């Protein structure tokens, strides 16, 4: 099915999609292309749509350039680079009307593989690189670089910027610079000679990326853990969270290794499974370190026993869930927001946990720090719910900054000196009336000794099967939850500036699509106010927003409308006013899916 109609005359407003074969080294070519646009000052986002495979299956990379700074997917493909014969037909079908398809013309193409409303651009990439390069592996890599070269000519991408990037990339392997530049030139010169360059859809230098960086959410979250002062990380490898711990470890190697002795001021343990990873985090946090684990949905299922344990025994711990498509193994390399409910109420018994909802890598950084502070302050497990789209894709965000005056909020921890002065210490006594008791660390003072148990315990920390004593503790945990309501990050509200009865609620990686949809809707006279949730439990601002609007669209990326359910459950709202807008294909939600469905709903309501 062809995509939406393209308006290819736009400058700095286009989508390039590249179809290749997994394992052929196209990632570096695609990054090169995206970074070149970024350095030309054009806002860009890159989305890797990849298979759960190491080599051989089809893979795509989508680059969106948007001078207005929109970063969601759209229904459009303006320029398709079809490098994979296996998917040629599908790739051709996806090109927007009046769009372009670049293909390798080294071999004749079937006439069937054409569309009248799509411009075909044949470039003999394989022929050219085979004449210039050996061995085979180099040829495969250079073919990718050559299509970047062709796009430079076709779309007016600055080759000086491309050279600069290549020189930086291969600063340590200088002899690779020239072959890469030759490949760029091969593609560039051929396109220049045979086609009317530049095409109407093209790049033009602007200054929309000053003070911005390109970063993925896992890297940003790892930076957050580093700056929050986390010292212990335990994990079991799982897509799409693996790169978070990889990044944390390499940051620690750089910044937490004693230059003289080589001693590490961190400890990363690759556990035997997610159960053990959760146990290690709980143990380390109990012993006084800031500890965390990155995982994804299947890992959370395995960790749930420990998460309930940590809730009941009031041990701080930070869990990153980089969500992927479920249920079960699902689609490990595709994105969804499908773990919200399983995180919020993770584990058996009456349990509930603060869940933070970053919308982009910047918030992955900031909310990671918040998560550690909240976990320590509330003495409870805290989730950071990211997803594959945020975690593994490159996003353009304002530069991160750090305040060196920051000090971790370690919450109510009694020091040895404080314990010395106490007559007696009782672990679960609500001294301050906020539901948060004082804790002590092992190895500090004999008076602080207490016995952690997941079994029934009383206010003093002793074992109990007494009804009143049991209830006193779990009721206090609810008081603590009320404290949490006022402590988590508040939702961000954006008003339309017009009188409107329509509200939109979204969170996490659905944000970009909503921002663009709001803009499109406003252009056609539909105005809506927007509330972006950043955490569960909900603060008062969420109730107020629900109260103020007659219709509230809840946009999210799962089948069952999990946030919709959570709002019904945890607020006093009229369930009839909530309308779900759901997208759960595994690909990041496109902005037109949001705007079209809102339009359709409003039309239907008007008719009714």
């Amino acid at each position, binding site marked *: 099915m062809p995509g939406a109609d393209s308006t290819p005359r736009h400058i700095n407003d286009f989508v390039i999609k590249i179809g290749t074969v997994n394992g052929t080294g196209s990632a570096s070519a695609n990054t090169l292309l995206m*970074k070149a646009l*970024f*350095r030309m000052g054009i806002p860009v986002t890159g989305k890797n749509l990849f298979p759960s495979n190491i080599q051989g299956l089809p893979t795509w990379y989508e680059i969106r350039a948007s001078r207005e700074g929109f970063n969601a997917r759209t229904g459009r493909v303006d320029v398709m680079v079809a490098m994979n014969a296996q998917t040629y037909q599908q790739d051709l079908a996806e090109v927007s009307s009046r769009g372009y398809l670049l293909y390798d013309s080294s071999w004749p193409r079937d006439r069937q593989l054409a569309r009248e409303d799509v411009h075909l651009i044949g470039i003999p990439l394989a022929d050219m690189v085979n004449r210039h390069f050996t061995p085979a592996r180099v040829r495969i890599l250079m073919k990718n670089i050559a299509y970047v070269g062709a796009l430079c000519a076709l779309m007016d991408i600055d080759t000086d910027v491309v050279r600069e990037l290549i020189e930086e990339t291969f600063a340590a392997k200088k002899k690779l610079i020239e072959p890469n530049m030759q490949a760029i030139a091969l593609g560039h010169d051929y396109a220049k000679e045979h086609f009317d360059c530049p095409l109407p859809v093209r790049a033009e230098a602007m200054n929309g990326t000053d003070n911005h*960086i390109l*970063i993925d959410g896992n890297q940003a979250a790892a*930076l957050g853990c*580093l*700056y929050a*002062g986390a*010292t*212990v990380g*335990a994990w079991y490898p799982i897509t799409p969270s693996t790169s978070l711990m990889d990044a944390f470890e390499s940051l620690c190697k750089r*910044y937490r290794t*004693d230059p003289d002795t*080589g*001693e*590490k*001021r*961190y*400890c990363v*343990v690759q*556990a*035997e*499974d997610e*159960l*053990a990873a959760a*146990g*290690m*985090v*709980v*143990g*380390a946090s*109990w*012993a*006084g*370190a800031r*500890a965390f684990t990155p995982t994804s949905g299947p890992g959370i299922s395995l960790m749930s*026993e*420990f998460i309930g*344990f940590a809730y009941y025994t009031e041990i701080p711990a930070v869990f990153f869930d980089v969500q992927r498509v479920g249920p079960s193994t699902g689609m490990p390399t595709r994105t969804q927001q499908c773990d919200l409910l399983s995180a919020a109420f993770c584990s058996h018994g009456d349990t509930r946990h603060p869940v933070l909802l970053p919308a982009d890598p910047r918030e992955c950084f900031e909310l990671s720090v918040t998560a550690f502070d909240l976990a320590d302050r509330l003495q409870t497990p805290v989730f950071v719910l990211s997803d594959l789209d945020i975690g593994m894709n490159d996003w353009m965000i304002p*530069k991160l900054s750090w305040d*060196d005056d*920051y*000090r*971790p909020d370690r919450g109510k921890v009694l020091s040895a000196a404080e314990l010395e002065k106490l007559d007696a210490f009782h672990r679960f006594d609500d001294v301050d009336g906020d539901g948060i008791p004082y804790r*002590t660390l*092992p*190895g500090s*003072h*004999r008076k*602080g*000794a207490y*016995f*952690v*148990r*997941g*079994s029934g315990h009383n206010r003093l920390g*002793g*074992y*109990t099967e007494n009804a009143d004593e049991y209830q006193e503790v779990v009721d206090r945990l609810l008081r603590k939850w009320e404290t949490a309501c006022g402590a988590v990050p508040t939702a961000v509200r954006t008003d339309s500036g017009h009188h409107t009865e329509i509200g939109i609620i979204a969170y996490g990686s659905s944000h970009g699509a909503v921002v663009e949809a709001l803009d499109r809707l406003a252009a056609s006279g539909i105005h809506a106010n927007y509330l972006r949730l950043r955490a569960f439990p909900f603060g008062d601002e969420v109730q107020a927003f629900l109260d103020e609007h007659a219709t509230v669209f809840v946009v999210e990326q799962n089948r069952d409308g999990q946030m919709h359910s959570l709002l019904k459950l945890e607020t006093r709202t009229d369930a009839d006013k909530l309308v779900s807008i759901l997208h759960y294909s595994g690909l990041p939600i496109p902005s037109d899916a949001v705007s079209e469905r809102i339009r359709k709903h409003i039309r239907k309501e008007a008719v009714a």
Partner: protein
Amino acid sequence: MSFITKPKVQWSGQRRNPLGLTIRDYEGGMSTLCAGCGHDSVTAALVQAFWELAIKPEQVIKMSGIGCSSKTPAYFLNGAHGFNSVHGRMPSVATGALAAHRDLIAVGISGDGDSLSIGMGQFAHAVRRNINLLYIIENNGVYGLTKGQFSASADPGSKSKAGIENQQQAIDPVAAAISLGGSFAARSFSGDKEQLVPLIKAGLAHPGCAVLDVISPCVTFNDHEGSTKSYAWTRENHESVTTADLVEPADAIETSYREGSEVPVRLHDDSVIRFRKLEADYDPGDRAHALEYLERHRAEGKVVTGLLYLDSDQPEFHQLSGTALEPLRDFDYERLNPGAEALEELQNRMR
């Protein structure tokens, strides 16, 4: 679990250790296990070992999983932090705690159900990582709290209280620990305090994961005729290959002993326990030999006890990891923060 406070009576003339503490200072709450339970004897041996070693209770962490054995950390060392975790997961919590604070003296109390069934994976990986933990398995071949099912350490042919014969093979934690690359493996019997106390001390002193399997009969569900984990059977069939008959103080002059006749284990204060070999041909430094010896005696229906395998040179978890000597949790934030400038500089490469 303990909810009865144990009365603590002090009188003048009580023996005190170098810290000035009496043995009562190392006790815990009142046991709620069945009268005659082997586990209570292990608890008593732990109290004695910690007292004799003059370890500050607050330096100790007592870790456990779920089961009768896992209740016992409430019954010793009131002055130490205790952690009764979830079933079969004690090793991971201990690993985390030790990752955060490498100087804590960790003792993990588990059982055959907790470590050899639900927790077999974590047992194996604690051994493999060589975390600095005394890992005691109070082994009675039976699930007590759920009333008498066979555990994975029940011997084939052993009969349950209901008269059912176990058909499946038994997992021997000592043989398992040795074959998993463990650095310390020992076995004892709850009814043999003389052997048990020095083994506990040696396990605490060992820099790495010290697996100590203690046959600890269940008086309620597995102490009958036909059981191979009963008091009577174990008394009859346990054979010690080593005995700890010498504890040299730190300042003792190293006397020379006949090469190969003793296994020395150095304690925290540099004193040394010497385990003398009772079986002349037993070599606790030889993995293949130890396994072969265990297997040969198992086939004969014998329970081999003593210090069965020791490799004190094997690097402990933190040595392998290259972690700072100072406990990680003691690093103040100033020494962990890379600083705003570093973040700025790092981001120059993200353009």
